[in-house]
C-alpha cells in the first residue's frame, strides 16, 4: 500500500482529501494542531484505513525535519504528498503588517518548499513520486483585500511548475489544484449557520454554476492528480471553481 502525506490534513479540503485517499492509500495527516490531526487520523482508522497523525508547522524547518524522520520510522516511505496547509487573511494592502505578510508567504510558499524539499530525495531515489499543491483561483484573477493571499498562492504555482520541470526526469509529477469558493471552515471563518447562510447565498450567486463547491469536489480532483490516471499530466493546474474563471 502506498502512502500519501497531507499537510493541513485535519480540516476542510485537506480532511476531505484524507478521507478520499484513505480508500486506496495509507494517509499521514500533518497539521499545526496535533490534537486535531490525531482526531482526524482516528476517524480514518475507525473506518478501517491506515492513518498516522503528526503535529508540525510547515513554516518551521526543524519541525518538518523532525516530523519527516518520525514518519519515516513509523509509517515508512512516502510516495505522494499533498501540500495543502494554508491560512487566509483579508486586509487592504496598506494595512497589511509586515508580520502578516511574512506569515502568508511563509505558510504558503516556504511551507511548500520545506515540505517538498524534505520528501523529494526519497522520491528521486525510487524514481517515482507525485506532488500536488493547493493554489487558488484568486492567484489568477487577483482579489481585493487579498493581495498577500493571492501573491502567495501564485508563487505556489511558479514553484510547482519549476518542480515539475526539475523532477520530471525522475518520474516525479507536480501539479496544483486551484479551488474556487469551497464551503470550508476557512471560508466560513467561524460564522454560525445563521450568519453564514446569507453569505453562502450571496457568494453562490457570483459563481456561474450557481453554488459553492464542497471540499469533496476538490478532493476528487486531487485524487485524480495523485493517481496514475494523470500519469502524463505535470506542471498543470486544475481549477474546481464552478467556471468562476476559465484559465
Amino acid at each position: 500500500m502506498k502512502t500519501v502525506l497531507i499537510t493541513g490534513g485535519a480540516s476542510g479540503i485537506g480532511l476531505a482529501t484524507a478521507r478520499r485517499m484513505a480508500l486506496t492509500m495509507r494517509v499521514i495527516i500533518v497539521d499545526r494542531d496535533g490534537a486535531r490531526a490525531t482526531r482526524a487520523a482516528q476517524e480514518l482508522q475507525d473506518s478501517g484505513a491506515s492513518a498516522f497523525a503528526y503535529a508540525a508547522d510547515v513554516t518551521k524547518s526543524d519541525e518538518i525535519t523532525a516530523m519527516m524522520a518520525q514518519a519515516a520510522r513509523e509509517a515508512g516511505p512516502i510516495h505522494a504528498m499533498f501540500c495543502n496547509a494554508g491560512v487566509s487573511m483579508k486586509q487592504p494592502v496598506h494595512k497589511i503588517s509586515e508580520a502578516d505578510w511574512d506569515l502568508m508567504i511563509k505558510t504558503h510558499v516556504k511551507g511548500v518548499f520545506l515540505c517538498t524539499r524534505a520528501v523529494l530525495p526519497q522520491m528521486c531515489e525510487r524514481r517515482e513520486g507525485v506532488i500536488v499543491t493547493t493554489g487558488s483561483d484568486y492567484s489568477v484573477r487577483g482579489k481585493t483585500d487579498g493581495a498577500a493571499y493571492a501573491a502567495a498562492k501564485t508563487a505556489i504555482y511558479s514553484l510547482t511548475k519549476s518542480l515539475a520541470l526539475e523532477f520530471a526526469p525522475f518520474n516525479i509529477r507536480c501539479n496544483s489544484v486551484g479551488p474556487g469558493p469551497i464551503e470550508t471552515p476557512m471560508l466560513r471563518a467561524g460564522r454560525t449557520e445563521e450568519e453564514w447562510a446569507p453569505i453562502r447565498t450571496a457568494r453562490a450567486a457570483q459563481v456561474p454554476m450557481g453554488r459553492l463547491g464542497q471540499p469533496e469536489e476538490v478532493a476528487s480532483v486531487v485524487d485524480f492528480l495523485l493517481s496514475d490516471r494523470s500519469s502524463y499530466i505535470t506542471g498543470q493546474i486544475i481549477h474546481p471553481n464552478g467556471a468562476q474563471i476559465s484559465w
Partner: protein
Amino acid sequence: MSAAASKGAVIVTGAASGIGFATTQLLLAQGYRVVGCDLARGRLAERDSADLHFDALDVRDAAALHASVTAEAARGHAITGLVACAGIITRTPYLELDEETFDRHLDVNLKGPLFACQAVLPAMRRQGKGSIVLFSSSIARSGSAHGAHYAASKGGVLGLARSLALETAREGVRVNVISPGVTDTPMPRGHASDEEVYAKAAKVPLGRIGQPDDMAQAVLFLLSDDSSYVTGQDLRVSGGANLF
C-alpha cells in the same frame, strides 16, 4: 439496469482512430454506452460490443449529428456525454495557405464541435445533467510554424468551450477542454515519420510523447462526477511541455 444504462450514452466523434478510439475503448470498459461517430468504421470494427453503436458521419454535417443523437435517444439511452475528438491537420506554409485548406480546418476542428454541442445540448438540458469534453491542442497557445490554420481552429475551441461553459453552468451541463501535446496517433503521421514523431519526446519533460490512453483517462475524469465542480477549464495533458 445494466451499467451502461446507468452511466448513459457518450457521443464520441472521431471514434474510429487515435484518441477517439482509445476513449471509446476506455468508456466501454468503464460501463458507458458509446455512440462512435466517424467517416468510416476504422478501428471500431475491432470492437464488438452491444454498448457500442457506430454512425458514419462527417462532423461538418449538423443534420447528421442531430440524427445520430435523436436515434440514440429513441433507442432509449440518456445522452450524458459528448467527446469531440474529430479533427484534421495538414502542414502548410503561411503564404501557401489557400482558402479551401483554411476553411476545411476551421469547419472540421471548430464548427464540428459547435454542431456536436448543439446536437447534444437539448437532451442534456432536459436531463439537467451532462458533460462535454472538447479537444484543443498545445498548439493553440504555442503556435506552430506551417500550422497557423490548425492553431487558429484549436484556439477557437477554447473560446467556444469557455463561453458554452458559462452559458450552461447553472443547467447541470459541464464543458471542459483537453489540450494534448504530441500524441502517438495516426494524426502526426500525416506529415511526419515514426522516427520524427517519437523524436519529439526529447522536448517533453516527462521524456515521452503522449499515448492515446493518457488522453482517454483525462476524458474519463472530466465525464465523471470526480470533476463535478470543474467546468470551463482546459486540462493540458502534455507531459509538462508548454507550461503556460
